[in-house]
């Protein structure tokens, strides 16, 4: 069986933990409990009729006080950059983080997730518009 380490990276309260919970256990909660350190989960997926075990590292979100430590990303096969659509700053954080990660562990594939689609009305980000 193939195993892959995948990391959840982004600013605080963007919905990293919520995404993992939804993906692994199909649950969702409105209650915000910030992640301290790292929370690890596992999800088995079928890829081209091959079973892959995803080891999901849900890292604490970055804020002014605490930068994400790059050592947690070592050995990751890919990562999600999670952005909260209602807060433009989280997109900027994501970009900065992406650059930092690539600098540390190389050009590893990543997916940028624009979260909180249901609150699209309040988004500070619009399609086709550069955030800056």
């Amino acid at each position, binding site marked *: *069986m*193939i*195993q*892959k*380490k995948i990391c959840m990276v982004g600013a605080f309260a963007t919905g990293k933990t919520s995404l993992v919970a939804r993906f692994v256990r199909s649950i969702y909660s409105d209650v915000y409990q910030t992640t*301290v*350190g*790292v*929370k*690890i*989960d*596992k999800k088995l997926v079928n890829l081209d009729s091959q079973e*892959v*075990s995803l*080891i999901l*590292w849900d890292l604490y979100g970055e804020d002014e006080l605490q930068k994400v*430590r790059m*050592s*947690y990303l*070592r*050995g*990751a*096969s890919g990562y999600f950059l999670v952005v909260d659509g209602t807060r433009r700053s989280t997109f900027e954080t994501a970009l900065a983080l992406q650059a930092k990660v690539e600098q540390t562990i190389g050009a590893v594939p990543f997916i940028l997730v624009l979260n909180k689609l249901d609150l699209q009305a309040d988004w500070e980000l619009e399609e086709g518009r550069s955030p800056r």
Partner: protein
Amino acid sequence: MIGPAIRRAIATALEATLQSLNQALENSLTPQSFAWRLEALQTGKSFAEVVLLRTLLYRVEQVFLIHKETSLLLHHVAAPGVETLDADLVSAMLKAIQDFVCDSFNTSSGDSLDTLRFGELTLWIEQGPQAVLAGVIRGNAPYELRTVFQQAIEKIHQVQGKALADFQGNAAVFEASHADLEDCLRSRYQHKKQGNKAYAWVAMGMLLLALGVFGFFGFRARQRWATYLEQLKAEPGIVVIEAKRGWRKYFITGLRDPLAVDPAQLLQPVGINPQAVVSQWEPYLSFDSELAATRVKDLLKPPATVSLSLDEDGVLRMSGTAPRAWIAEAQQLAQFIPGVTQVEVADLIETEAELESIQRQIENQILQFQEGQTAIAPHQDESLQTLVEQIKRLITIAAALNQTVQVEAIGRANNNGSEAQNLALSQSRADAIVALLVSAGIEPESLTARGIGTRNPLQNQSGISTVEINRSVSFKVSLTDESHSEISNP
């Protein structure tokens, strides 16, 4: 984040172990297992848990082979009976915590976390260049075990160095390390012996015997204590208020008349160690007649010639003889003595009166002699005997009044013969009587002898002729008050 997960894994594993252990031990009967059962009962732990706790030196319960770069699990083994949580997760968490520690505490790059402890569990991490070996150990592993881990991780690197370097997430190839990992699953227990049934029964028998002996001693101690309490209750002047038997000690409180026996002195005779008894006695006055009688004696200090009796109703009867002064004082005092309600002195004779009467009796005695003889005439033994007793009694009574007695034997002769002869004869007769009295046990200091010849003759009495009556010895008693003797006899 890692602690609870591993702990849970361990707990599950432990439970499984305990189950099997439980079954194995349930039927065994050893003194050891008996003690463990007792401990289990006392601590509320399960029996198997106690056994494990008491016998386990250490046990490697799980071994993880973890890829360093990706922190992905390469291989995992667990001791039999140990069920594990998702080893993939554990290995990732382990790596995460290592990273966390290294980052947080700014250790130099060469250093790495190699030991973690959660209560009874120790996590050992043995670093290799590409992979690490992590062992979950219960108890205190000996340092030699490190070598085992080191050799295992080295061997894995030697054999699978290429696979480690090329690792892309497919762990199947590391199945090959299984034997090396299993080799690390070591354990040591203190007691591996199977319960020896015969030994067990002997031990059980001894235990029963001990219980029996203990029970016997307990029974005997109880008996003794009961006896002691019985005796105390029977003692006048002792009131037991509370008596308790504790573990090894006795406690007793009560009232005690100062004249009553010392309760501590009754302990040894019934076989109780006085050291084991904590007693508190408050003084009180008992109206018990026996004690009241003692109290009366203590206070009145009666002379030896007085006997006292106190009846149930508190009537004090005094009999015998006593100095007038003492009788007066005693009568006064006695009515104030607790336990005395009435004083009877009808049978009490004043010493002074008795003294006078005996003196008179002695002075009325005469001992006779035959014509011209200096030896006492026959058939007067009884008179002599009476005289001896009277003198002795006189001395005793006089002593009670602080007086000394002098008895003078006065010898006489009738007027036959010359006066000189008669004087000598009378002196010899007095001397002879004094000698008799001394030989009968009267102190010579109390006696004097004087012959008076025909002077001061006795008048005839009750049909005895004047001639006869003056061939005799009569007596004169003189009493000297000791306290005044110097004044009266300057």
